[in-house]
C-alpha cells in the first residue's frame, strides 16, 4: 500500500468512525496490507500538520485520535442548534476537579475539603455523563467507595491524560503524616485489586 493511499484511508476512517481510533486500532485495521506502526505514526503526524490551520483539527485524546472543530469556532458552530450549551455549577466543577486532581478519592474526602455535603445529584450527573467511576473501596470502616475519572472525562475535555490538566498546588501536608501515608498505601492496594478483576 502506498503511503499516499494509506494517508487517505486513515483520514477517511477517522472522519467516519463512531469513536476515536487508537494507533493500535489503525495498525490492526491494515493488518492485511502489512502496514507498520511506524507508517501509521507517520501518517497521523502528517495529518495533524495538514489540519493545523484548518476548521477541523486532528486531536489525540485519551481514547485515540479524532477530528474535531477548532475550539475558537464554538460560538459560530453552536448556532446550528437551538439549545445553548450546558453550564456546570461551581459545586459540580469543584467536585469534578477534586476527583480529577486528587483521585482516587472518597465522597468523605470531597466533603471535608469543600466543607459541604456532596449532593447525590452531582455524583449522579457525573456518573451518568460517564466522567467518573468507582475504582475501589478504602479499607476503613464503612468501606467508602473510591472515585476516579474515566477516559470519557478526558475525551470530553479534549485531554490525552491527566498530566495534561493545568497544574494546581499540591495538597499541603498536615502534622499527622503517618496516617496519611498509610491511607495512600491502602488506596493503591484497592486500585490494584480493581484492576485485577
Amino acid at each position: 500500500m502506498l503511503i499516499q493511499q494509506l494517508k487517505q484511508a486513515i483520514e477517511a476512517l477517522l472522519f467516519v468512525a463512531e469513536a476515536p481510533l487508537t494507533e493500535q486500532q489503525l495498525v490492526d485495521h491494515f493488518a492485511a496490507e502489512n502496514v507498520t506502526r511506524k507508517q501509521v505514526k507517520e501518517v497521523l503526524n502528517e495529518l495533524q500538520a495538514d489540519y493545523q490551520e484548518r476548521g477541523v483539527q486532528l486531536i489525540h485524546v485519551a481514547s485515540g485520535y479524532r477530528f474535531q472543530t477548532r475550539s475558537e469556532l464554538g460560538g459560530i458552530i453552536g448556532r446550528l442548534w437551538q439549545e445553548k450549551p450546558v453550564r456546570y455549577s461551581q459545586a459540580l466543577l469543584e467536585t469534578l476537579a477534586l476527583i480529577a486532581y486528587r483521585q482516587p478519592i472518597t465522597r468523605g474526602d470531597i466533603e471535608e475539603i469543600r466543607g459541604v455535603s456532596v449532593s447525590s445529584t452531582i455524583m449522579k450527573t457525573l456518573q451518568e455523563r460517564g466522567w467518573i467511576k468507582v475504582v475501589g473501596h478504602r479499607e476503613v470502616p464503612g468501606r467508602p467507595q473510591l472515585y476516579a475519572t474515566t477516559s470519557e472525562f478526558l475525551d470530553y475535555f479534549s485531554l490525552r491524560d491527566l498530566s495534561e490538566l493545568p497544574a494546581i498546588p499540591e495538597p499541603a501536608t498536615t502534622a499527622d503524616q503517618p496516617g496519611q501515608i498509610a491511607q495512600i498505601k491502602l488506596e493503591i492496594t484497592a486500585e490494584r485489586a480493581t484492576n485485577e478483576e
Partner: protein
Amino acid sequence: MRQQQSLPLGFVRGKPVLEKPDDLYIPPDALELILETFAGPMDLLLYLIRRQKLDIIELPILPITQQYMEYVEMMKDLKLELAADYLVMAAMLAEIKSRMLLPRPASDEEEDVDPRAELVRRLREYEAIRQGAQHLDNLPQAERDFFVAHANTTARETVESPLPEVVLHELALAMSEALAQAKLLNSHQVQREKLSTRERMSRILDLLQHKKRLRLSDLFEPHEGRAGVVVSFLAILELVKEALVEVVQVNPFTEIHVTHREQIYAHSTT
C-alpha cells in the same frame, strides 16, 4: 439595624452584590441566588480572606470569625434556610478562636500545634481545588467549544455480513443429536448406500417439477453403469412406497412413465 460594612450579599453572575436594597426588600429570586452564590462555607471563608487581602497562612482568626458570623447572621436575618454546613464552620471558627485566646501551658510547647493549622491546610487545599475547577471550566469542552467532525460515507452500506461457516462433521453431529432426541437412532441408521438413493429420489422429484411426465427409460443413465441403474430403480421404488410418485403403463409393452401423483388426479378428472 446591623452594620453592613461592605459585606456582599452574594454574587450575581460572578459580580459581588454589595448593597442590600434600602427598603430591605429582596425579591425571592435574589434570596435563592444569594444562597447559591457561595459553593459552601469554605468558599465564603476564602472570599472573606481574599477580600481583605489577608494571607491564608497568617489566618487572622479574630476578624475573619467576626465577619463570617456577621454574614451568617445576615443570612439568618433574611430568613434564609441556612445550610447546616455554614453553622458547622461557624462552630469551628469559634473553637479555634477560643483556643487562640487561652494561654498556652509552657510544658506542652513541643506538642503545641497552632489551632489554625488544620483550617489553613483545608483552606489552601480548597483554594487549589477552586483553581482546578476554574481550569476545567476553561478547558475546551465538547459541544460547547468544539464538536466532533464527521464525514458521510456509503462504505457501510456495502458491508456484507459474512455467512456462518459449517463443517461437515458438525452436520453429522447435528444429525446424531436430532436422532438421539427422537430416540430413533436404531431404526434410522443411515447407510451410505441409502443416501445415494435418497439423493436420486430428490433428483427425480425435482425433474418432475419441470416436466410433468418422465419416461422411465430416461431415468436410467447408461454411463452410470449397473450401480447407477440400481440406485435409480431403488429410488423410484422408494418414491412409490412413500406415495410420492406413480408409475404408469397405459398398455402392455408401451413406455412406462413416472408422474407426479397430482398429475394422475388431473388427468382422471378431465
